[in-house]
């Protein structure tokens, strides 16, 4: 799976979780850029990404990700579909 495809699918997940059809994320997007992205919403976001790509983040990764790019990188390594 290439990075573009991953970013596109990630973007869809973000739109669902934050209920914003116009939301656009790129590799540099962080929690500071999205108003509703707090620590509680982060839990749902992680679960939704795991569901989308049929993979699991390691506990260390969940708190360690700095931006969407790092998230996409982990997905690229481990995604099953």
């Amino acid at each position: 799976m290439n990075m573009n495809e991953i970013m596109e699918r990630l973007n869809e997940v973000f739109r669902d979780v934050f209920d914003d059809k116009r939301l656009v994320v790129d590799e540099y997007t962080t929690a500071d850029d999205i108003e509703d992205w707090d620590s509680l919403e982060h839990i749902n976001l992680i679960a939704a990404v795991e569901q989308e790509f049929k993979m699991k983040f390691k506990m260390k990764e969940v708190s360690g990700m700095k931006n969407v790019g790092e998230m996409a990188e982990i997905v690229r390594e481990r995604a099953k579909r």
Partner: protein
Amino acid sequence: MKELEYPFDSSWILKNRKKIRRALLEERQGRIKKRIAILGGSTTNDVAAMLELFLLNNGIEPEFYQSEYNRYWQDAVFGNPELDKFKPELIYIHTTSRNITEYTFDMKLSAEDVSSALERQYEHFTHMWKSIEKSFGCPVIQNNFEMPLYRIMGNSDASDFHGRVNFISSLNMKFYEYAQSHRDFYINDINYISACFGLEKWLEPSYWYMYKYAMNLEAIPELAFNISNIIKSVFGKNKKLLALDLDNTLWGGVIGDDGVEGIEIGKENAEAESYDEFQRYVKEHKKLGVMLAVCSKNDYENAVAGLEHPESVLSPDDFISIMANWESKDRNISAIAEELSILPESIVFADDNPAERHIVSEQLGAAAPELISPESYIRTLDRNGYFEVTSFSEDDLKRNDMYRENIQRERQRQSFENYEDYLLSLDMHAVIEDFRPVFLQRITQLTNKSNQFNLTTKRYTISEMEALSKDSRYIRLYGRLEDRFGDNGIVSVVIGEKREDALHIELWLMSCRVLKRDMELAMLDSLVKRCREEGIRYIRGYYFKTQKNAMVRELYGDFGFTKTEDNGSDTQWLLDTEDYENKNKVIKID
């Protein structure tokens, strides 16, 4: 909303929470508002978020208070200004096996040591429940405990008193005993639903390590759904009747084509046995006071022949109504609702045909769970919790008989030309008096169930009703009606508050099963009599409009009250009792 009925897709609900919430809020108005406090021994954020969706879907709009992380005990025992101000109408205590503090695994402990640890743990909770009862007096929903993550002793963990599984099982039993002896206290059985969900998946510990969630995020919709079933039942939103299709729903095959001997029911093969067990499941509902009806596209003779099959568990007598004809099913269901004076939305419609389910749920708002194949019928109906039992009264036991008697009365009526002659022929007797403790359960249940003949639609919890029943500022009446066909039980409730020389009616309701029997006139006569005894001259009536109570809009006017206020929907009324004359002429008062 179909997506929020069992079986639902938990991941999808979690991901689309905001969108679903928006859709639910736009979908309809007129929900009842409830303040619900969640006191958690672990993170509760998503519990509240999911619970909100399932409650909205059940016609309840919740406002939440959530205790700070793991402050459930302190909030309940010592109070908290924010919680006091919130005035919860229901408290949910979300504790799990993670909150067990008195258990230690130590093979040196004696049976007495373990049993006193158990007692200490139990007291930790009873102390809290009693504080809640004293400060808030509202219904409480308490989790029991799920099985633990590991069994250090292996299988003996269950049977040996040193084991954790043994400790949790004993503690659960103690909780159940408390529930049996306390009203308005309900157990949320997470021990059962975690097993259904899959315990290993439920307990996925990374959610605890990372977020202090005591369960897998994906299990939270299941948890919330289960709680919402208890809450909707407590607030009187249970279903009342189960309407069933016949062919491929209660038996296998099509009786019109295959004949009585050709349908699958009994023990001969797997399919027949699946229908046999489903029929047993359906029949047990009668013992809860749930009514059963048939709604089938069949000739009536064929339908009855199928139910008289020697292997059939259900017989024609089990059904309050058998609609077997070629009319469309939504029309038949609405005819059943009309005949019994219940709302179509209080009906569950069980049919294997998706097109029939669609038309009934779209046209009437009845619940129509997805029945895919006979081996899953029981699970689908059961897990949906339509008939969740939180209170059980004498009337529930007799409900089927009472509605059946109603149908006989209807036939009797048709044989009379003059309506008053018919009423006299019923030989009606009523008891109308102040509340009695044994009837409080039924009275409270009525206040939460009656929607149509209900002037103010004020709801009460059992605790509120207990307090009110002892308060001398109120005049209270319940009415019980009996006639030649049977006892209708308690069918009417009136509550008024005395203020100076007037009685202000805060509740006037009547069960629709005794409509047009002049019972409301008998109630008014008794109310006036009570007012005179207490030296109260005026009665003030209030009508608060809802989507369902149009039938009583002019009730006070018909009673001879004078309208004093009208804002277009709500009205106020006044009666001077000085020259009131009794109106009831057909019911004898015992």
